[in-house]
């Protein structure tokens, strides 16, 4: 059966230029047609030290398609190094350059002894989506750039989470995860965002362990780091939102890192007390708003579908209708992602659908009885079905066209409260 991409909620693997872009002073060099960066990378928050139209690009034309684009790529890299002041140059291939068969590896190798590091990742759009592409860029950094550490640094933890720029909350979430890990007395190391450039990348091999906070994206990378540098990893599959999951997160990470139990208990106790101070004050709103029913659905990538479902069930006491995962999760990970939806309070289980066909999702939502106004959390695509079903609607994941997110986060205790603010700011627009 042909695969219809109706309401696309992911992009192609070359969108991993966003992963490079998220590393301060790392520059993607695109061996692609002229439009790839504009289409894949141009959204709110994408101008920084570099921006998509700054990315050097071979702007492949008919000449390169017919005669090959290796010379063009070589001169583009040479001049990129001369013209643009970056610390790391990451060449990304495209559909066109891969079909034409340019030997990019060999060209990149010729820059090996230059002043600035040049690496490459094969990211043709037809080979997979941007969730995979993100992983391929990390693999390129690990395999081609990182060097074995002289020694491990006690307490240093690399944290890996959502896909940069694609996830609207990527950076806010990452910063919150860092804070939580630091509170445990560990030293977080992340490579994305302000002030976290190559210096932090260089520290990756010296970490005591890798902490992956994601259902499946990034798993390949932490495994590769284990294989290459002997760094063990802790896979925490749920992005912690709200008190229930964040406390569990702190306990799991703390125990894994052999942090004193008393310290963990104190930390969790302190945070929960503050969190429930707010919940106590605003509980009337959550308990007595007549338009808020109990059933909800999330249409998002595995990261948010898992995390939001758990928060709404375990913290807020709601019940899941069917949940949807739209990131084209590879088959080998689907079982373990599904398991996350079976591990909730009171043995509550959620049915979960993996599909990339938006039309099908929305038909199912329309035919679901939410026993009141539905709560739909998804992307801009869900706005219409929300209008049709009179749902409360909050967009949190790509595509997010009618909402500006600068650095806010849904992670942690504060993140749970922020999510409640956002949900109820929608809910409270109606009385009955």
């Amino acid at each position, binding site marked *: 059966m042909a695969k219809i991409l109706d309401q696309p909620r992911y992009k192609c693997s070359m969108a991993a230029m966003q992963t490079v872009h998220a590393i301060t002073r790392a520059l993607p060099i695109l061996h692609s047609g002229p439009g790839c960066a504009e289409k894949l990378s141009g959204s709110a928050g994408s101008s920084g030290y570099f921006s998509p139209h700054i990315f050097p690009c071979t702007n492949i034309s008919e000449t390169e398609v017919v005669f090959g684009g290796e010379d063009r790529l070589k001169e583009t890299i040479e001049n990129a190094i001369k*013209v*643009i002041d970056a610390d790391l140059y990451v060449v990304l291939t495209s559909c066109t350059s891969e079909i034409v068969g340019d030997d990019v590896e060999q060209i990149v190798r010729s820059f090996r002894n230059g002043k600035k590091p040049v690496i490459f990742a094969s990211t043709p759009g037809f080979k997979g989506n941007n969730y995979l592409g993100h992983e391929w860029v990390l693999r390129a950094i690990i395999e081609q750039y990182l060097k074995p550490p002289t020694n491990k640094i006690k307490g240093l933890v690399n944290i890996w989470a959502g896909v940069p720029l694609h996830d609207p909350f990527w950076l806010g979430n990452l910063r919150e995860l860092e804070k939580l890990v630091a509170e445990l007395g560990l030293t977080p190391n992340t490579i994305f965002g302000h002030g976290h450039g190559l210096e932090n990348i260089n520290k990756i091999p010296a970490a005591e362990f890798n902490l992956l906070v994601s259902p499946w994206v990034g798993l390949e990378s932490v495994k590769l780091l284990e294989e290459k540098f002997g760094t063990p990893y802790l896979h925490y599959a749920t992005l912690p939102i709200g008190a229930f999951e964040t406390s569990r997160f702190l306990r799991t990470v703390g125990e894994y890192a052999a942090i004193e139990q008393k310290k963990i208990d104190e930390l969790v106790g302190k945070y929960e007390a503050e969190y429930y101070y707010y919940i106590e004050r605003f509980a009337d709103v959550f308990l007595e708003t007549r338009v808020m029913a109990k059933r909800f659905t999330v249409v998002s990538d595995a990261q948010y579908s898992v995390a939001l479902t758990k928060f709404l069930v375990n913290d807020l006491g709601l019940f899941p209708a069917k949940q949807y995962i739209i990131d084209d999760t590879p088959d080998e990970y689907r079982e373990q992602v599904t398991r996350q939806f079976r591990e909730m309070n009171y043995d509550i289980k959620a049915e979960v659908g993996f599909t990339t066909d938006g039309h099908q999702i929305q038909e199912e939502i329309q035919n679901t009885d939410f026993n009141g106004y539905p709560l739909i959390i998804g992307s801009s695509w869900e706005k219409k079905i929300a209008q049709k079903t009179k749902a409360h609607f909050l967009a949190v994941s790509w595509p997010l066209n009618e909402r500006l997110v600068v650095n806010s986060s849904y992670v942690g205790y504060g993140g749970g409260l922020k999510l409640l603010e956002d949900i109820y700011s929608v809910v409270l627009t109606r009385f009955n």
Partner: protein
Amino acid sequence: MSINLELATAGTRESRLGSITGYNGNLQDLVQQSHCGSLADRQRCFSQSSTCCSGCALGQLSGIRDVAIINHAPSGCTATAAGVDVLNAQLAVKRGVSNSTVYVGTDLNEQDTVFGAIGSLKEIVLETYRRYRPKAIFIGTSCVSGIIGEDVDSVVEELRNEVPVPVAAVHCEGFKTKIWASGFDASDHAILTSLVKPPKQKRNIINFKNFYESARDQIFELFANFGVEPLFLYQNSTVEELAGLSEALATVCICGTLGTYLGNGLEEKYGVPYVRTINPLGVVGFETWLREIGKVIGKEVEVEQYITKERAQYMSKIDEIKKELQGFRAVLGMGPGYTFEVARVLQELGIEVVWAAAWHYDKKHDNGQVPPALDHLLRNSPNNFKLSVADQQNYEILNILNTYKPDIYFSRHPGTTIWAIKQGVPALCVNDEYMIFGYKGTLNFAQSILDTIRNRSFEKNLAARTKLPYTDWWYQQDNAALLKEKK
């Protein structure tokens, strides 16, 4: 004649019009070379990421109400679908209409690149028709479908017998052209060959090619003075309206780059006059344009009356603000449909244009003539300003800004404004196509220029705390240093 509606494609601007993306010189040289035919493209040995034609082609068509766009492409090419959907919804709400247009992709994968996916393309078109009952279907090609040789035209032929609505192929492979405006032509070609029907009658309609009809109410009011109505294209157009384009009194356009193919195509095939003047931006542009419309529809007297009335209301205010703009120096970087028009308006306001960059250059439009804006500038420009053609090559622009240090930079394309600001130059983005339309638009524009120059807080704050991405080496070079000599 360069337009051939018998062919499957519109062809690229490079091949059809001799358009270029690489040039560095000045106004007089460019226009003279355009006239004598000696203008040749110059390649670059370094380029930054540009834009492809498929965005323009499918972006134009996806504004039409209740149609389906099917992009035969990997998922990344379809990344714009959500933006289109949200834009359509917002613009339909503004108009008080509904728009059920859908934009789907075929999500081409690795296997498809080996075995082809023409079968699944057909299935997806049929499934899309079943789901949404669109009133027309446009199948957009991509780099991948082009290189692996998918025979989209044959599928379209088959589908025409299987679905009861117009189906058209839109050839917009990104690698075929460096000029994204070729995509406008691809969309016009699809409209002209699949939707437009021969006229049955003449109607008091003027086809108005634009982007997002922000001046819709104003133009309805304007045209009512002459007893005609505008039909805005293509955002919020219906398939039925497009079928009747041949019945219009004339075609006009807010941007010569956008309008050349449709305007000339309708004139050549159906005798609908295409108004080819400088654009209705600024006072001179607006009046020239309006007078030509008056001539074409036989309403010269009414046009003069209107101009007299409006002049009385606005000219003293415009003259007043012009005094404050005298002596400012400007650099611009836009598509050619705007660069040369906005340069003209700036001169009209007393601002000195020191450098104009156009993202491409059509040395002629589809009627075989040099674009009117260039001839106008050649005759009227007080200086022979410097000029370059570059497909949004930001490194050249920043080098230019660093060298010429203007008082203001004018941008028009997404993501291009901030760079001038970081370079320490105030910048104003002329993104709405009607921003300088008519007398009031000219006045608003002049005021915005003053406001931009007089409150430099945002720019000063940001520039003081950020570093530019280019090396000192690059700033020491001539801005054309990486432009190769002509072959």
